[in-house]
């Protein structure tokens, strides 16, 4: 097991290096620091000195990959690639283009993101499984048919409308919760309620349909027929046999997104004004702060790879037939 994990982690290294190279090419070769400086300074006719000063103050003035002027290891380390890209491997994110410490900001903004993402995921899964089981229980009837139709209708609505609709109904019409904002501690609850509700509702369409397919696939299998032939009640068959076995494919879908919960949801957070990592990323995008976007790209890929690893490990835990070598 441990050998497997270590090997998988080693496999992850080339992928992370690939991600790093790709972002480096995207951010520094396609667009040279001169271009970035020019667009940051906002004028196409800025002087060469101004660009040089900006580059120097943000550390973009060094050579790209190889520094011929430096001594010893400095030839490789005293470069933009090493300073800006490779240091990400040590989770040293450096400073954003506006001068703030990115690592500190990420540490601060992680918690509001989790406070929204975790309840949304948990409640969402419970709701979807309930609906999925319900529809599977009534399979072949009108409830099944209209349930699926409702799912298709729900998943044809853009997520933006769920947010706007939720804000309008719950906050503006009924004045139940504040429209947007965030607070620390217990006070955060009333701010979290709306985003979580919106997040759950917007996921019902696709989630329920997906779980229904899973359950129906499982219901068609031989062991279910055997269970029924033994005279078990339909409830018992569904909850004791089908649900447990359907949990295996269900789990893989969930575990892989777990680490990514840290990243938060871009749209929900910026709509509701939550100071999480999602809105941090959006701010970075909108201010054209390349350092922030680069850090978040790297962080996202690391978390994704961790998610894949966790998925494989969780397989062995729930399904004794799977053995990792």
């Amino acid at each position, binding site marked *: 097991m441990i050998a497997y994990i270590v090997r998988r982690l080693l496999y992850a290294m*080339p*992928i992370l290096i*690939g*991600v790093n190279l*790709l*972002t480096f090419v*995207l*951010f520094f070769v*396609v*667009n040279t620091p001169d*271009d*970035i400086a*020019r*667009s940051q300074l906002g004028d*196409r006719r800025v002087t060469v000195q101004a660009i040089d000063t900006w580059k120097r103050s943000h550390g973009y003035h060094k050579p790209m990959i190889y520094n011929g002027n430096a001594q010893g290891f400095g030839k490789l380390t005293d470069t933009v690639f090493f300073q800006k890209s490779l240091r990400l491997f040590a989770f040293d994110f450096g400073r954003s283009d506006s001068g703030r410490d990115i690592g500190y900001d990420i540490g601060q903004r992680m918690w509001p993101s989790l406070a929204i993402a975790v309840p949304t995921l948990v409640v969402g899964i419970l709701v979807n499984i309930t609906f999925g089981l319900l529809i599977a229980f009534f399979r072949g009837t009108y409830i099944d048919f209209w349930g699926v139709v409702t799912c*298709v*209708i729900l*998943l*044809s*609505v*853009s*997520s*933006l*409308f769920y947010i*706007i609709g939720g*804000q*309008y109904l719950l906050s*503006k019409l009924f004045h139940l919760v504040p429209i947007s904002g965030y607070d620390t501690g217990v006070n955060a609850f009333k701010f979290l309620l709306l985003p979580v509700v919106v997040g759950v509702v917007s996921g019902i369409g696709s989630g329920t349909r997906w779980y229904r397919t899973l359950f129906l696939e499982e219901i*068609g299998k031989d062991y279910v027929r055997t269970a029924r032939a033994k005279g078990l009640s339909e409830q018992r068959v569904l909850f004791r046999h089908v649900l447990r076995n359907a949990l295996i494919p269900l789990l893989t879908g969930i575990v892989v997104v777990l680490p*990514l919960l840290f*990243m938060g949801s*871009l*749209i929900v957070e*910026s709509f509701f004004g939550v100071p999480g990592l999602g809105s941090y*990323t*959006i701010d970075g*995008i*909108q201010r*054209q702060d*390349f350092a922030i*976007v*680069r850090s*978040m*790209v790297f962080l*996202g*890929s690391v978390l*994704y*790879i961790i998610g894949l690893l966790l998925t494989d490990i969780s397989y062995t835990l729930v399904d004794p037939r799977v053995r990792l070598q």
Partner: protein
Amino acid sequence: MLFLFWTDVLIFLLVGMVLIFVLYARRREHLRAPWREVGRSGVAMGSLVVLVFYVAIGLLDSIHFRPALSPNEDNGQVKYANEIVSVFDWLVTPLKIREEKTYSAPFAAFLYTKETVELPDGRQRRQFPRLKYGASHLTDPETEKTTDIVTTGMLAAVKGLLVWGVLCTVVIAALGKWKHQALRSVLGQMRAGQTTVRWRSMLYTLGVLVVLSFVAADLSMKYHILGTDKVGENVFYQALKSIRTGLVIGTLTTLIMLPFAVLLGLMAGYFRGWVDDVIQYLYTTLSSIPGVLLIAAAVLILQVYLDNHADEFSSVSERADLRLLFLCLILGVTSWTSLCRYLRGETLKLREVDYIQAATALGVRHFTILTRHILPNVMHIVLITVVLDFSALVLAEAVLSYVQIGVDPTMNSWGNMINSARLEMAREPIVWWSLFSAFIFMFSLVLAANLFSDALRDAFDPRLRQQR
């Protein structure tokens, strides 16, 4: 003077490819069988009509030209305007040019905001001024408006029904002629829903669409049926123009990513070894970067490029078009990985099948095996993915535009409509019509696409076919 954008060219290329595929599939029974099953589904055929309706508007909006100005008196030379318009723009010119000052509600006769108006006796008063175009034919809007709307709407609906009746007759006559049956028996079968292709649901959907478009067209000549936006532009016009943007993103993205996904997926599965390793590495790396962030990074970079090379584009719309194309490209880069992985798995299974082994033993070249034996057997996966991706991409456009990494802000798109309307949510009375229009148009397109793709998947997926 004809002027084609890059996306226009690609769209017509795509239309050509679809036509070629239809001609190719017509003569092959194994390709026709699943399509016949799609044709038997009433919901799917109804959705297809809606989709075709959208595509028709999108295509009309994709033939761009620069209108000729009135010829110069001196030398008789024809000059062309700088503005690039499409055939669709030209058809709906009244919608486009009748601009108000600012917001006005659907069917309103008065502006949304108060203005200082000078009365005939010289005094000044704050009141809601009449609109320049909306309901301007009425002398007393308060009493006459409802009757006028109802009568105009009814008249238009009757006109629409007549046109629909003619269309139905044409279809029935053509079917009767083709099948050598009496018109009465064709009509009877159709009404009972016994035809092999569900003409009934198609014609009903067509009827609803025709009547709606007639009503909308006639009312639009007198009112702003979906209101006007902040700068007084007709919202109905904006929503119609957004159709093209949505369709371009939904279709061109797949067109761009398809060659990569199919080629690499097949190669990885077929050749295995180091080819497989390299391709797997490539798509794992790409898919491990969160999609939105990769798109954001790429669009940011494009923005910097456009800012620094602003002189190279002759017009704003040309720049917006390039950005749209680039967005399709980058969406394609982020979305090909899952299809590629799926195709690789399928090819791995297929290459062990007997007939492939036989082909290998007979010394058939790799290329021939791939194109003749493997590709046709994974085509259903490709088709299902393409159709399923379409609605997801249309929805993604709105979200991306909201985050301001979507299409150019000057371009009409549902995302931009939502984005600009969102800021007006707090106003009293609420400015709801932009959101409403974007919602209705997007929802009907995506719903139709979803329903159609469900039927398509049921018909094409061999696993689902076995279950029945």
